[in-house]
């Protein structure tokens, strides 16, 4: 199984290495815009819990960005399945499905972490105060794992690339703005807040914000994230094995 993990990871690493510079540059655009618009533009008129708005939104930007990058790292699987049929090469090989899935997820986590590192550097350049600890990195990794798994499932379930774009529009985009990334969820109507607080990205944003501002870690949120990661992993296995139907 270890060699299958390594093979799946190696393939995605090769593709990333071919386009590393393009990947890094393109990943800088959205965070810079968020920080200019919300950090510089709005932070002077907004004060959150006695701190600056820039310090408040950087953990949110990290949460939403790691979600988007890890999710979209595995959406090309849709093309590999539907259009290029290159996924068949894995399906006819004597590999462990769990090894293949794990390797793909780890490659997506790597992309999510590279992108997060870029944001952290940019945030420091913009003057944000951010405390990095191993727990902070761990939460980022779990967030990447959850959304890489979600991307894996979505890519294998959808029938074409247009459906994939719809998943982004109807699920990821609303989550990016509503899950405690740019404002606290208690500003939402109560029913909406209840729903939003069930979603994994909300827990990631809460955790990253608490850790970066030196508060105690809300462990129940870590448990929620671990639960999501386990459920999505099982879903990946089920869907991958179901491709043979």
């Amino acid at each position: 199984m270890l060699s299958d993990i390594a093979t799946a990871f190696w393939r995605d690493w090769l593709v990333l290495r071919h386009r590393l510079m393009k990947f890094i540059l393109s990943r800088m655009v959205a965070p810079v815009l968020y920080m200019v618009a919300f950090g510089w533009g709005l932070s002077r008129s907004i004060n959150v819990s006695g701190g600056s708005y820039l310090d408040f939104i950087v953990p949110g930007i990290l949460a939403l960005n790691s979600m988007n990058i890890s999710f979209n790292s595995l959406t090309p699987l849709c093309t590999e399945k539907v259009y290029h049929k290159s996924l068949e090469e894995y399906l006819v090989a004597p590999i462990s499905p769990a090894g293949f899935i794990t390797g793909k997820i780890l490659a997506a986590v790597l992309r999510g972490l590279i992108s997060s590192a870029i944001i952290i550097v940019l945030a420091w350049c913009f003057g944000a105060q951010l405390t990095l600890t191993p727990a902070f990195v761990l939460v980022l990794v779990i967030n990447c794992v959850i959304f890489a798994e979600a991307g894996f499932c979505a890519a294998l379930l959808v029938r074409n690339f247009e459906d994939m774009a719809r998943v982004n529009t109807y699920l990821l985009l609303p989550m990016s703005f509503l899950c405690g990334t740019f404002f606290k969820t208690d500003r939402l109507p109560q029913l909406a807040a209840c729903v939003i607080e069930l979603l994994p990205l909300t827990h990631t944003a809460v955790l990253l914000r608490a850790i970066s501002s030196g508060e105690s870690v809300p462990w129940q949120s870590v448990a929620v994230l671990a639960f999501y990661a386990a459920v999505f992993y099982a879903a990946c296995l089920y869907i991958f094995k179901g491709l043979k139907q």
Partner: protein
Amino acid sequence: MIEINGLTKNFTVKDKNGHKAVKTAVDNLNLTVNNGELFGLLGPNGAGKTTLVGMLVGLLRPTAGKILYNGQNLAQHERDVKKIIGIVPQHINFDQDLTVWENMELHGRLHHMPEKQRRERIEELLDYVGLSERRNDNIKALSGGLKRRLLIVRALMHKPQVLFLDEPTVALDPQVRRRIWDLIRVLHKDGVTIVLTTHYIEEAEALCGRVAIMDSGRLVTTGTPEALCRNLGSYAAEWDGENGRQYRFFADMDEAQNFAAVRNGALTRRTNLEDVFIELTGKAMK
């Protein structure tokens, strides 16, 4: 030896009224392919050949029935069986983001080949199909013929004992087709069991020791091309009739010539596999 017992595959489709319906692509098929055999699988479009190959290589799960490789059940020993089989699919299914070398390397890694063996084998195979100089090209830069040659040698990377070739020469120039035929003959001589599906009857006639003819998911007949022709009648008379070209088959050449003599413009010839195919699967387009 590959033993196929009562193999069936149903798919859920929509009928002409848009309601869900069950389509049987392969219907209770029984077949045996011996070790070292070059076996042809013939059938019109939609006969179920590709679905059958899909089940034989573990891409599709059968609805019913068993597939045994040297007595090992594919459903229970899937990874062991996959180690000994190779597949050349009908469509080009390379990883479009990788180069020629990287695609070969990926295949070697997926079959757990050690690094040194992997590298030597890639060098050897790329050299064999004249692609050594193109090793760093992206796969998209290759012509159709080169891609198909690469597709075949990729399947040979891990030295499979059983090779499935699904329409390996479709849409290729005659020159490239002949070269691929030579490669298939070399593999057969080396003892590889080969299962070949093809639309080109002359391809099956030129290569296969035994063929099976499928129609509408069912096995119609199996045998050597010579035996199938003999069963139909070794000699054919053909002429233009009221409903287009007409054919009649005879066991004896004299009989065929006597029959042709009383029909203007009739010609006689030896029966070929295409005659057998048309007689058994019908003249109507499928």
